[in-house]
């Protein structure tokens, strides 16, 4: 039992944190956002040159040959930076195709996604991240849970409250299940996409927490830092609890994706439920703890709040995942009672 990143994974995290701090400052994120989700092409080119989009893609398909935990580490850092790139969509789609796709799907998409020549979109027809310009979409809206690969669809730009990322609505196109045979592979692919979104949320929450702590230690009222007041402290403690809950479940889902696929359905539902609600509440608290400043356009916490809202929507909200969890638990209880 070792429930922590390995030294190699910590090194990936450290490198990513440093690179993104240098290349994706709030000034750059703001610039991209104010230009209407104009992605930072130079940053994206650099991430592609480093091989990040293909981190969980096999070397034979041009990737790094690492796993879901390493992908989670990068996603958390990209979330932490709130970077204006299509990283989540491309890397999550590539990881899902690598793990669950047919040989033909892997051969067709992985080399181009891993190198960044092609991009992907993820989401639903009503809300698809990075759909415009994507060569392939991974859509998660079948009631039975399968992820569908969609090509040739008509994507229309959808202006959302989160201008740090491009969103689209999707119409038409040719759809096939992601994977071969029955639906199990395609359902697992959907779980992997949600685990990836949840990992990004962990980074968003972590950044919101850190910005808040820095602010409440600095900002003084009544002659003391506002972070000395217990009401503010309790809010910060709750932010930590929600952030760490999302982190525990996101890491569990990543580990399950790599090492215990039979536990992935539950692990992904846990991660999605914790992230969808946790991300929203931590980033909302960040605005509140910043006081009036937090409500201004200039204070950058609102980008995190907005991203957390859209990520929760991409996850389909926490409630459906809690329903999944209740049903999984009830089946287990019934099985135990009958055995």
């Amino acid at each position, binding site marked *: 039992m070792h429930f*922590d990143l390995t030294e190699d994974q910590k090194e990936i995290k450290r490198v990513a944190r440093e690179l993104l701090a240098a290349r994706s400052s709030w000034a750059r994120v703001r610039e991209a956002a104010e230009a209407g989700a104009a992605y930072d092409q130079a940053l994206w080119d650099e991430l592609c040159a480093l091989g990040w989009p293909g981190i969980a893609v096999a070397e034979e398909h041009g990737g790094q040959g690492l796993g879901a935990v390493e992908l989670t580490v990068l996603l958390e850092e990209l979330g932490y930076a709130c970077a204006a790139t299509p990283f989540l969509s491309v890397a999550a789609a590539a990881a899902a195709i690598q793990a669950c796709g047919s040989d033909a799907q892997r051969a067709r998409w992985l080399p181009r996604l891993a190198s960044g020549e092609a991009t992907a979109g993820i989401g639903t027809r009503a809300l698809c991240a990075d759909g415009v310009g994507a060569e392939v979409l991974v859509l998660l809206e079948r009631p039975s849970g399968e992820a569908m690969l969609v090509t040739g669809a008509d994507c229309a730009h959808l202006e959302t409250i989160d201008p740090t990322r491009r969103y689209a609505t999707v119409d038409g196109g040719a759809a096939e299940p992601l994977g071969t045979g029955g639906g199990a592979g395609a359902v697992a692919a959907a779980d992997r996409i949600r685990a990836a979104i949840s990992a990004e949320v962990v980074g968003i929450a972590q950044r919101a927490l850190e910005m808040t702590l820095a602010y409440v*230690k600095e900002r003084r009222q009544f002659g003391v830092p506002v972070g000395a007041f217990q009401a503010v*402290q309790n809010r910060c*403690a*709750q932010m*930590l609890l929600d952030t*760490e809950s999302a982190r525990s*479940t996101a890491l569990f889902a990543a580990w399950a994706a790599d090492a215990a696929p039979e536990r992935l359905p539950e692990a992904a539902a846990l991660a999605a439920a914790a992230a969808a609600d946790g991300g929203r509440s931590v980033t909302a608290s960040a605005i509140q703890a910043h006081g009036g400043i937090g409500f201004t356009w200039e204070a950058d916490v609102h980008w995190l709040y907005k991203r957390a809202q859209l990520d929760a929507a991409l996850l389909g909200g926490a409630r459906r995942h809690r329903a999944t969890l*209740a049903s*999984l638990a009830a089946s287990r209880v019934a099985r135990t009672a009958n055995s």
Partner: protein
Amino acid sequence: MDLTFNADETAFRNELRAWLAQNEPGDAPHGDEDAHYAWRRDWQRRLADGGWAAVHWPAEHGGRGATLTQSAIFYEELAAAGAPLPANVLGLLLAGPTIMTWGTPEQQERHLVPILTAEEIWCQGFSEPDAGSDLAALKTRAVKDGDEWVITGQKVWTSMAQYAKWCMLVARTDSDAPKKHQGLTYFLMDMEQDGVEIVPLKQITGESEFNELFLDGARVPDANVLGGVGNGWKVALTTLMNERSGLAFFLQVRMRQLLDGLIGEAAGRGLMDDPVVADKLGELHLRCEVLRLTAYRGLTAIETYGQPGPEGSLTKWMWSDTNQQLTQLAADILGPEALTAGAPWAFELLRARGNSIEGGTTEVLKNIVAERVLGLPRLK
């Protein structure tokens, strides 16, 4: 990252399971606290005979030198088997390790074995009416008289005092010390003497787990000072640091069993199709799993860095909160059946109110998180 158990851990679990299968504790006696305690005491004797009473103690003192993960496995399996905590849990978890850290060879020789075998039960004399969360404000005084100390004062919330032979007692030996956490001394006090009066405190459940302790001229020989005169705060911290480590896993498994029971009740009433009930049960399932995962993350942090990470301070808070939500939901699902006097769910509902107070109130835990984990300033 590896969330599987290694060969040693699996072997440990299998050996324990096999032992538990051969040594079932039997049904808990109901309605009689003394009989219930005797059952737990007998259970600890059997654990001790099998070498399982204190797995986390070093082998030289009768333990198994278990790793933190093995210790966690021990408590998980104990709970999974429906077994109670050993009767002398305060001795095993608090007094024993504190005596191992601070005790003289004579003190270790005298006390450790009777703790292990439940021959001598221990209680904890820390809290006072005016010193709860603010422990260093305690007023109980110890005055030197020849080679003895004379103790005067009052302790409260003393679990198991009625069965205890010994008390981990913190008292003030120097009232002129410049700071309140200085001038304290940690004593090993014999409970069987005239100067010690035990008055049970009736709780909202109707039970009396706790007591008040009135100390009027109780005597403690010099030889029973632990860790030196005036060093009581440091010794007490050793006791407090031990308080929440292993139990978390026992409590987490018990809560999972309670939740599974509630899910069974909901399913039996056709309520799993009620979206509100399913939503709340799903949330409780999430919280139980977060608790389990976060507790394991905390173990890895201690094993890697020698101290708990941010996770450690969060689990007790999360556990008490979740247990209260769970038992409240039971009242919604079962209705009056959960509110009938003597019903197990009624007991759980009432007992859960104590969870966010005992062993550190949620308010204090949040303060600890804010100050020690998040580094927020203290209001002067």
